[in-house]
């Protein structure tokens, strides 16, 4: 018996030593592994032994004897926590095949958040947490848990995906921008920046409900300017956004009493345009020589206006179904005195819009009238007797002068304060011109397009600018077919034109 006891004692001591060695070995092993290794008992509580990196990965110090789910509570979405509980219950039930239920593990790729002392989220990690059954009979170790921190690789993959998407978009935009002449691009950015800033200011300073309706026309005007500028330059990616923006503002006009809520679509669209403009400006920095070309050469300027008009015609003919040929062989942009170029450009663009919108018929209509389905717009210029002349003519008949005059008579049209009807200094054709160019004309407003109203507003501005520059404008009819608009400027060096001839 004594011998048996001694043997048993010896065996026990030997086993205890082995156990100690095993424990030390285990502790040493756990201290070396980089992954989070831990053990759960059947109640889901973390045992006292785990890898040294586990607290750092989970960002939790006191881990022993804590329920694993408590550590995740408040740090992962509620749904994921619920699913984890269900998954662990299944893992602890031997009746279920481990490989099958592994599909149900919601922690295979999970974001785990950490909070600081103030309760604010300080950190987020992308972890992969897996479980394996160990010894279902052992109450101390039922499951082995493994945690890998994939934060760095997930962040990298995410950044790579975002970068690829961003690069593709930037390439598409860059290709569009490279086709645009630099001065035009700079002007475009300046106009958009100005108008977006203007809209921001209008919205921010209008917080009383009664003023909401009053600001809509101002928003319409800015939206029109933004859209027009993008259309002329054929920037498809921008015009898509500006077109939707314009439509959303137009919808506001239909509301009797708009509320703050009703402006939400406009504000969201505005946000998109701000972002796009920022990206365009960033792209422009990459276009070589942009910052140095503050003023271009005359030769370079030469084809700009014609390209703008061509772009505008292409866009408007697409949307209106009209067909137009542009002739400009007698147009010498370089011959225009430099100080008049801007106003000439604005005049030609405003007139092109006006004529296509109101003056030229659709191709089908023209065919039915036995005229060439392709309408003609001609732009010409000449310098003689110290007067520079720009001629713009078209062969549309949509608005016939007789009808306009008759309608004006019927509506008791009396003219406006700043353009007296009976002024003898006004040369022939100016009556008609006033009818064309005056935004008070109800017949045009009755056409029902805000686009039409904005075109008229453009004309009003151009007319005023012409006056400031000492320019004159008249309308003549060279034949049944053609309607011609002429603007004239005194050549630089000549004094202001006589007051009685100004228009």
């Amino acid at each position, binding site marked *: 018996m004594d011998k048996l006891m001694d043997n048993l004692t010896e065996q026990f001591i030997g086993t205890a030593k082995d156990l100690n060695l095993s424990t030390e070995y285990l502790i040493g092993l756990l201290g070396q592994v980089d992954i989070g290794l831990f053990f759960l008992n059947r109640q889901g509580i973390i045992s006292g032994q785990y890898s040294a990196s586990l607290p750092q990965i989970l960002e939790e110090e006191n881990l022993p004897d804590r329920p694993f789910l408590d550590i995740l509570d408040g740090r992962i979405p509620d749904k994921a926590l619920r699913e984890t509980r269900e998954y662990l219950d299944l893992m602890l039930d031997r009746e279920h095949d481990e490989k099958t239920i592994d599909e149900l593990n919601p922690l295979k790729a999970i974001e785990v958040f950490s909070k600081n002392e103030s309760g604010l989220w300080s950190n987020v990690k992308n972890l992969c947490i897996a479980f394996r059954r160990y010894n279902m009979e052992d109450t101390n170790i039922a499951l082995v848990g493994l945690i890998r921190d994939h934060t760095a690789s997930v962040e990298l993959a995410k950044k790579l995906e975002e970068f690829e998407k961003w690069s593709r978009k930037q390439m598409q935009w860059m290709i569009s921008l490279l086709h645009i002449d630099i001065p035009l691009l700079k002007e475009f950015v300046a106009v958009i920046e100005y108008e977006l800033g203007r809209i921001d200011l209008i919205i921010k300073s209008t*917080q009383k409900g009664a003023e909401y309706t009053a600001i809509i026309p101002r928003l319409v005007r800015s939206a029109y300017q933004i859209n027009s500028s993008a259309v002329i330059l054929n920037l498809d990616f921008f015009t898509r956004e500006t077109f939707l923006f314009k439509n959303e503002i137009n919808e506001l006009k239909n509301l009797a009493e708009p509320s703050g809520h009703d402006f939400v679509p406009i504000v969201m669209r505005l946000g998109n345009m701000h972002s796009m403009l920022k990206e365009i400006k960033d792209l422009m920095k990459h276009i070589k020589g942009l910052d140095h070309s503050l003023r271009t050469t005359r030769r370079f300027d030469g084809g700009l206006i014609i390209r703008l008009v061509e772009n505008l015609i292409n866009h408007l003919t697409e949307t209106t179904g009209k067909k137009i040929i542009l002739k400009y062989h007698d147009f010498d942009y370089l011959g225009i005195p430099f100080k008049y170029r801007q106003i000439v450009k604005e005049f030609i663009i405003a007139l092109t819009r006006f004529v296509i919108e109101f003056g030229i018929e659709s191709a089908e209509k023209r065919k039915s009238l036995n005229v060439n389905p392709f309408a003609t717009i001609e732009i010409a210029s000449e310098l003689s007797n110290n007067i520079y002349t720009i001629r713009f003519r078209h062969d549309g008949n949509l608005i016939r002068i007789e009808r306009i005059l008759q309608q004006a008579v019927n509506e008791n049209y009396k003219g406006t304060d700043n353009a007296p009807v009976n002024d003898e200094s006004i040369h022939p054709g100016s009556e008609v011109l006033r009818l064309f160019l005056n935004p008070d004309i109800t017949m045009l407003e009755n056409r029902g397009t805000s686009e039409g109203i904005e075109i008229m507003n453009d004309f009003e501005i151009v007319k005023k600018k012409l006056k400031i520059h000492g320019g004159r404008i008249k309308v003549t009819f060279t034949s049944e077919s053609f309607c011609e608009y002429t603007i004239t400027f005194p050549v630089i060096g000549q004094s202001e034109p006589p007051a009685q001839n100004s228009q």
Partner: protein
Amino acid sequence: MKETDLHFFIDSTLNYFDEVTREKAQTGIPYIKSQDPVVLDYTGIIGISGKRKGSVYITASQDMLINLAQLILNQSSVSNEDVKDLIGEIANTISGNVRQAYGSDFMISVPVVVEGHAKDIRMPDDVQAFVIPITWRSFQSFLVVCLE
């Protein structure tokens, strides 16, 4: 951020005032937050993460919160703690609605209350923030939403 998100936050906040005070609040026109700070005397901030990340905060003047607290608590005098609790409760209500609307795939932080007129509440630079002016009685507060 989508249009529906902004509508949701606006409705959520208006509903709070309607249900708690039985007096309607009005929203002004939302606008994009610029560099100018939008901060009043007390601010309740909540963080949102998960499928989409961002933060939302409500900032109000002391006078408004005192008025609101007096109405809710039915007392003529309210303490600073009551005022702080109130801004936290408003932020909590909004966060509760977010959790309900966006589902349990979203993480909503516990509201953090900032007392005093802070210099600014910084939002992420790469995500646009929208400011929604809210008027209740004659008091103005702001709800600022910044969500991917």
